[in-house]
């Protein structure tokens, strides 16, 4: 792989295809989009195979400094970025497949926007320049705004505005912080900034500015309200990419910027993250429990899962950070798959009302089985991807705060409640109406969309080492960087203060003498 700019090529392939799509007909655009995303998947596989686990921290580095004046075209990935890029390129062909028949109007533009989104996602994870990152990060708003607004549901215009303005407001404050950092540190290189020590009182402000952006993207309670709207109105593939990858930008941001660049501030404000996350887990899980719209339910469950990510990240230990990454990956797959499952029955009945369904196990057995798998994965059943992540993340948090862990673990119980309740209402019971009875089981296209995700979900659950290995060294690097600010945990063994009974002490002394 020496010298081959694979990351640039991975950006170029979908970019060229996105432009070409605009000049093609509907059918050709579909095939071109599928082809381009599959090429990128293949390149992604190549990327992973050539990634030297345990090797240099930054690999596949491309540096063209100052080609844009103050900033340049710098790409490069570590283990975290690698895994998230893999997630993106894995989900993209599935998104294109999910839109194959569901999208009928303005297909070339749709495919073009999805390919454009892929460029921006990969770019965000691969960027090694502060402003290049910002450009990719922020540009993602444009295609998503158009996807929700053009192909969305009834209330799509409100949702698209809310999505755009909410996330924009969060990001612009971060932009000012980035300008400050680049001026003070005299560099726009992310690796250099990750090693730069800002004074602690400045860190707090910078941290808060970044937090404003990432908390909205994540999304954390109470700035999560754009997410249910955006999810409900977006077309199926839009929801998949939104839940699967775009929500990970927030977590990735914490991992790449907040923690290594502002360790003191991160430690100082851990309480804020923990408190918001604990509220999010309990509150949004309860909200999910009473939803009558399937997509909204999954959207709220996403907020709860993302809160598990944030507590893990701010636990300042190996388990927490690796667990958070695993939850991000697992959630990306599982929530994506769940949105696809909703899309499957939505395409047949054109409603997301849970009460309209029931008894699908009778006429759609294959669907019921796959839906069951993803439901269990979302609950965090051992053997599925989410179990690994949630367990690690909560174990990490336990070392720091037992109370927060206690509160957040209720999310698993509540998660089981709302997911199983959803599954019972949709899949079990009697077939209530003729139109539900007439629904055919999964077509082979739909099987091809869900089966790969199911396989990876099980792979991650059974042999998580494949996914843990690439990030192990990066986790240690990160921990070495933030160790100096590590908050004291409340679950560590402490020295007793009670009075030792005299007799006992005597025995002990006696025993020692022997």
């Amino acid at each position: 792989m020496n010298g081959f700019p694979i990351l640039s090529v991975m950006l170029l392939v979908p970019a060229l295809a996105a432009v070409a799509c605009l000049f093609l007909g509907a059918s050709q655009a579909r095939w071109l989009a599928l082809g381009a995303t599959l090429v990128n998947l293949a390149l992604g596989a190549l990327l992973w195979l050539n990634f030297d686990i345990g090797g240099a921290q930054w690999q596949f580095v491309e540096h063209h400094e100052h080609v844009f004046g103050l900033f340049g075209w710098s790409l490069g990935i570590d283990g975290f970025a690698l895994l998230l890029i893999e997630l993106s390129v894995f989900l993209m062909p599935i998104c294109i497949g999910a839109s194959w028949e569901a999208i009928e109007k303005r297909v070339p533009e749709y495919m073009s926007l999805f390919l454009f989104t892929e460029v921006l996602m990969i770019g965000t994870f691969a960027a090694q320049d502060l402003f290049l990152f910002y450009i990719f990060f922020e540009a993602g708003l444009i295609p998503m705004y158009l996807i929700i607004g053009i192909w969305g549901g009834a209330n799509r215009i409100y949702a698209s505005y809310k999505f755009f303005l909410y996330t924009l407001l969060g990001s612009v404050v971060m932009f000012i912080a980035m300008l400050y950092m680049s001026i003070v540190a005299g560099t726009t290189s992310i690796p250099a900034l990750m090693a730069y020590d800002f004074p602690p009182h400045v860190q707090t402000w910078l941290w808060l500015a970044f937090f404003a952006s990432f908390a909205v993207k994540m999304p954390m309670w109470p700035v999560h309200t754009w997410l249910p709207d955006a999810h409900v109105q977006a077309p199926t593939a839009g929801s998949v990419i939104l839940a699967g990858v775009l929500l990970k930008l927030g977590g990735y941001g914490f991992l790449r910027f907040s923690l290594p660049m502002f360790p003191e501030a991160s430690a100082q404000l851990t309480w804020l993250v923990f408190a918001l996350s604990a509220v999010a887990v309990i509150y949004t899980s309860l909200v999910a429990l009473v939803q009558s719209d399937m997509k909204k339910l999954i959207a709220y469950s996403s907020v709860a899962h993302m809160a598990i990510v944030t507590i893990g990240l701010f636990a300042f230990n190996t388990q927490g950070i690796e667990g958070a990454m695993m939850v991000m990956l697992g959630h990306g797959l599982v929530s994506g798959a769940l949105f696809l499952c909703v899309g499957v029955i939505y395409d047949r009945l054109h409603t997301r009302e849970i009460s309209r369904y029931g008894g699908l196990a009778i006429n759609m057995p294959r669907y019921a089985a796959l839906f069951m798998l993803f439901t269990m994965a979302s609950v965090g059943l051992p053997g599925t991807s989410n179990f690994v992540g949630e367990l690690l993340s909560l174990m990490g948090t336990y070392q720091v705060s037992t109370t927060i862990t206690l509160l957040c673990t209720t999310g698993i119980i509540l998660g089981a409640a709302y997911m199983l309740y959803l599954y019972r209402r949709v899949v079990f019971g009697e077939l209530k109406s003729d139109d539900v009875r007439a629904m055919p089981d999964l077509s082979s296209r739909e099987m091809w969309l869900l089966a790969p995700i199911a396989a990876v979900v099980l792979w991650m659950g059974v042999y998580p080492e494949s996914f843990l290995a690439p990030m192990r060294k990066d986790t240690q690097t990160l921990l070495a960087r933030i160790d100096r600010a590590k908050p004291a945990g409340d679950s560590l063994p402490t020295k007793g203060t009670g009075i030792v009974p005299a007799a006992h002490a005597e025995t002990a002394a006696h025993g020692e003498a022997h």
Partner: protein
Amino acid sequence: MNYAAQLAMTLPEVVLSLGALALMLVAAWSGPNATRAISWAAVAVLAGACVALVGPATSGGSAFDGMYRADAFAGFAKTLIYVAAAVAILLAPGFFQRTAGDDLRPEYPVLILLSAVGMGIMVSAADLLTLYVGLELQSLAAYVLASFMRRDARSAEAGLKYFVLGALASGILLYGISLVYGFTGSTLFDEIAGAYAAAPLAGSTKSLGLMFGLVFVFAGLAFKISAVPFHMWTPDVYEGAPTPVTAFFATAPKVAAVGLALRVAITAMGPAAEQWRQIVIFAALASILLGAVAAIGQQNIKRLLAYSSINNVGFALIGLAAGTPEGVAAVLTYMAIYIAMTLGSFLVVLQMRDTDGQPIETIASLSGLSRTRPALAFGLAVFMFSLAGIPPLFGFYAKFAVFYAAVQAGLFPLAVFGIAFSVIGAYYYLRVVKTMYFDEPAGEYGPGDRLEGGLIVATAAIVSPLGYLAIPLLTAWTMAAAKALF
């Protein structure tokens, strides 16, 4: 210094003046039939003026006893002005031919040429009187241009409003000039700067007079760049004037006025930076906020773009508030990118016409444009996202540059509020995109024009991410221009 050398420094103005006078004679003898030929000849004159910029006109230094500066700053601003003026001339024949009512008269390109002479003198002025002469030459030509459709009531109203308010602004500026002259004893920028540096800017009567002079001069300049609170004329004039003229007003005179403001602020009143910075910060934030909020309710695309120009001037002023060479360079960068975005937007507005060729100006008529005219809708979407400053479009870099300068100068609250208000502005740009992409098609527009289509493609290419490749060049050029002021 001999006259030949001084005339060489003012060569662009000489070329334009002689060209304008010659074309005026041609126009007088050959009548309206020669309009198209004269338009192309005027574009050629502007191209000649651009060529004349190479050499002493951008590197000569001072001419006419320090009243005129021929430096890189003037060169950069003049390039932008001439390009924008040329586009405004090219747009006119097609527009007037399609539109019922008045035909284009050959005076139009001549007036634009004269206006360009005035603007050139504005950005080169190093003396308050040169400044005033240039400003008035530009303004008088502009008043006539605004009311160029004589039988159209809105156009006449626009011209009258522009004239009355412009005269008021000139009066305020002149009053400020007289105060400054009275208290400093000179009209030369360098000597004024010396007087401001020498005066203790608190307490004494003299300092009070200097302060008043400064405030009035800035108020007059704020009128010309249409910064809040002196922006009221802008929406009416932009709406009423013929669209090619509006495109011209939004670009070339704006660059000239901003260039003039930069030179006065830095060269003449640089020592009083602490004083004028407060005015500039207020004007910047107020312009951004009002330009954003007032645009939300607009139904007319030209009014919307008028508020957008107020909004954009606010962002440009952030760079001036920094008061550093980087800040000045950022303002110039901003204006360069702003011209491309604005010209592009107005080019699309020119395409908004019914099948008879009559212009339509409602935003509602853009409904569903992405399905009836996908390329046109894509173009306007690019310009709107770019004006909103969303990456990866080039408009983002314009904001990047000014905010970088502001943060570098330590103006954090200004930067934070400015960028937060920009989110409000994003709303109305998004509304245009929403109308084009999300709404059902309304009616069809008439067919496009090849020349205008080509210009749209060219401006869209500049605004697209391809523009980023030009950053090193643009930075080098604007920094050289900015250094000329310090």
